[in-house]
């Protein structure tokens, strides 16, 4: 059976600092330097058809070694 985690990690190892898209069965569909470029390539392939993809990003060594403070609390809706 296709292991999403194993395939994701394999593609991530080969594409540090890049965004990538995989098909549902693990085929590498596109690699790009930004999300916008990645979606352009996905749309070139699928047109306006409904998509079903895995989208990943491979963190750089510097990003992996940076500690995180991720907090996005709501103040108010406008």
């Amino acid at each position, binding site marked *: 059976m296709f292991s999403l985690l194993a395939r994701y990690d394999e593609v991530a190892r080969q594409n540090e600092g890049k965004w990538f898209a995989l098909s549902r069965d693990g085929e590498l569909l596109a690699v790009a330097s930004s999300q916008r470029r990645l979606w352009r390539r996905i749309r070139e392939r699928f047109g306006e058809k409904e998509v079903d993809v895995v989208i990943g*990003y491979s963190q750089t060594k510097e990003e992996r070694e940076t500690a995180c403070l991720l907090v*996005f609390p709501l103040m108010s809706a406008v």
Partner: protein
Amino acid sequence: MSVSVSIDERGLAWLFVRVKGVKGSAVYRACVDTGATYCVLSEVDCVNLGLIRKGRVVLMTVKGEATAKLFVAPWMAIEGTELAKENVEVVAKVVPGFPVILGMSFLRHFNWSFDQEKQEFSIFKKSPARSP
């Protein structure tokens, strides 16, 4: 039904999450953030998946106040599980290095815990209410 993942060397938990919109669905490796009111996904992803626009929100971040577009994902789930929720609020923001932040707009519909001994984050369905 539960899912457990080991936290990484930075203390972060990552889960594969499927986000479904009206134009398609995508699976992301999402970072769990119990301090985030909303889930976070970039605007280009929100638009390409066909998430529904809901308005704007004001956010307090470590860099101060910011406004962002708010979308609703018609369906979101931990990939390969029954841990799913309809109409999840998602803020459109780019967080460099993080494709998706899994915030409380999704997490509050489930039980979750951290096992200090195993260094694992677990998420599971809420137990049905017990009769008195």
